[in-house]
């Protein structure tokens, strides 16, 4: 059934901090910078902000969570900003920044606040990534870490190896996604790889990290933060930027069993359960979409997304992404800001921001002409998918 609250909430201002490879600046300072930019982009004052929410997980497993340095909690942000008129705050422990966004949407519809800030700050520890500390393997990792499944790359590589085998697919077709996204990052001034092109030769000569993932199939871990202002649409219309109206959202209501080793490759059920809710609430389908941001922690995350969300059939995504279809100017531009692979691993916050910018016609050089329907898959279809559709007005 079409959502009763369709178009009632909108993304207004957005903010992206400086993006660096690791921790030159304390993380909370970057998070505050992103929030200040988002508030200013809306033309609001900090005293207008009355809602605050984040998802604060530090994804570098094994590293200590130190509030303000390696993660930034809602409490830390409240302390930093001293919001005098705060009326609602929250911090979720599941479904990442998409979950935070949905909490804010619900709070706005309920009238718990009027201008909610959603922020997400990501730390990248110094030194080589995945040099994991700790002599012991705890929890479910006791069954995987002793065998060299130390970080996300190996754990997700087995899933992609299974995918390639299951559908008889050619690993090298994978290149189309990172190459397209790098072109998009080269148009995104905030992107980590803004100044760095990537050629097919660079891609095919890049080192293997964990078969079947090459270096450029992995996201680029960075230190940085994203933030955006959510408000009810009637208020958003009075603010500085054109609003991006939320037509629908969903979250995965079916999930791979927590901790199960590898995967039965049931990303279709997990991601599909989120996008089906979203299509139904928005009264739209994959064929209506003009531009899409699809979470790309690793290439596979996005590949599963194309299929789970219904942009192509199961097992067909590596063919779907060929021939420029997903590049700006193509039939379905994807990850138009460069994605996690090329703009930086800020989880889904940047995907949501770019989805909103495209819907409000504010994406600059990257703007997809006449983008009427802007889809966002803010986290992996295979893990904790949340999905959104933003539209301009009039719809």
């Amino acid at each position, binding site marked *: 059934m079409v959502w009763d609250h369709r178009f009632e909430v909108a993304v207004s201002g957005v903010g992206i901090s400086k993006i660096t490879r690791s921790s030159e600046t304390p993380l909370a300072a970057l998070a505050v910078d992103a929030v200040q930019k988002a508030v200013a982009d809306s033309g609001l004052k900090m005293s207008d902000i009355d809602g605050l929410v984040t998802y604060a997980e530090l994804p570098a497993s094994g590293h200590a969570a130190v509030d303000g340095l390696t993660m930034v909690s809602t409490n830390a942000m409240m302390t930093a900003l001293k919001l005098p008129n705060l009326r609602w705050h929250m911090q979720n422990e599941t479904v990442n920044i998409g979950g935070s966004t949905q909490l804010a949407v619900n709070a706005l519809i309920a009238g718990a606040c009027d201008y909610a800030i959603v922020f997400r700050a990501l730390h990248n520890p110094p030194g080589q990534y995945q040099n994991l500390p700790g*002599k012991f*393997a705890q929890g479910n990792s006791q*069954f995987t870490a002793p065998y060299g499944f*130390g*970080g996300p790359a*190996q754990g997700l590589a087995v899933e992609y*190896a299974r995918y390639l085998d299951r559908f008889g697919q050619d690993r090298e077709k994978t290149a189309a996604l990172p190459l397209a996204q790098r072109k998009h990052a080269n148009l995104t001034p905030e992107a980590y790889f803004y100044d760095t092109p990537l050629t097919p030769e660079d891609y095919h000569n890049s080192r293997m990290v964990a078969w079947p993932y090459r270096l450029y199939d992995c996201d680029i871990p960075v230190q940085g933060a994203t933030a955006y202002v959510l408000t009810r649409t009637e208020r958003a219309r009075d603010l500085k930027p054109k609003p991006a109206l939320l037509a629908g959202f969903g979250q995965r209501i079916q999930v791979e069993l927590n901790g199960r*080793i590898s995967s039965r490759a049931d990303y279709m059920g997990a991601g599909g359960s989120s996008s089906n809710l979203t299509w139904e609430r928005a009264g739209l389908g994959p064929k209506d979409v003009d531009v899409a941001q699809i979470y790309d922690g690793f290439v596979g995350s996005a590949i599963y997304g194309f299929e789970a969300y219904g942009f192509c059939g199961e097992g067909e995504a590596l063919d779907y992404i060929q021939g420029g279809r997903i590049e700006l100017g193509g039939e379905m531009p994807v990850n138009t800001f460069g994605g996690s692979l090329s703009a930086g691993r800020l989880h889904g916050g940047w995907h949501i921001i770019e989805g909103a910018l495209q819907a409000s016609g504010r994406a600059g050089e990257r703007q997809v002409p006449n983008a009427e329907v802007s889809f966002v898959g803010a986290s992996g279809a295979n893990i904790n998918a949340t999905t959104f559709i933003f539209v301009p007005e009039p719809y």
Partner: protein
Amino acid sequence: MTMSDWSKVERPIPMPTPLTQHFWDGAKAGKIIFQHCQACDNWQHPPSPVCTNCIGVDLKFEEAAQTGTIYSFTVGFHGGDRRFAAAIPYASIVVEMDGSKVLMAGNLLDVPYTEAHVGRRVKVVFEPLTDDITLPQFKLAD
């Protein structure tokens, strides 16, 4: 093609919980022990307080087959985790175990990493890691 040198690898040491202790006790005794739902016959691993198939709680730890088929694999080339650097490149595999159909992780030992393929038959071997922990590992079955 050379084989991975595991002798210099410092593997993270599993920390058993009350629920996982059965698996590690079994491995120390040369057995593979998985959780088996008495209500619906589902086998599961890692162990869970509740059957992941039928929500039943009548779960027993029972001995399972020590052979299986490679379900998927990855080859580690990344020296980021320096504890494994000496073995690079090395094959980490996920095996669908015969009978129970559960997925279990391990390394493919005694052959070059290029021998890791989906569908290959493997069998468990047991490698003592500490006084308390013995790791189940895999070799090709043929």
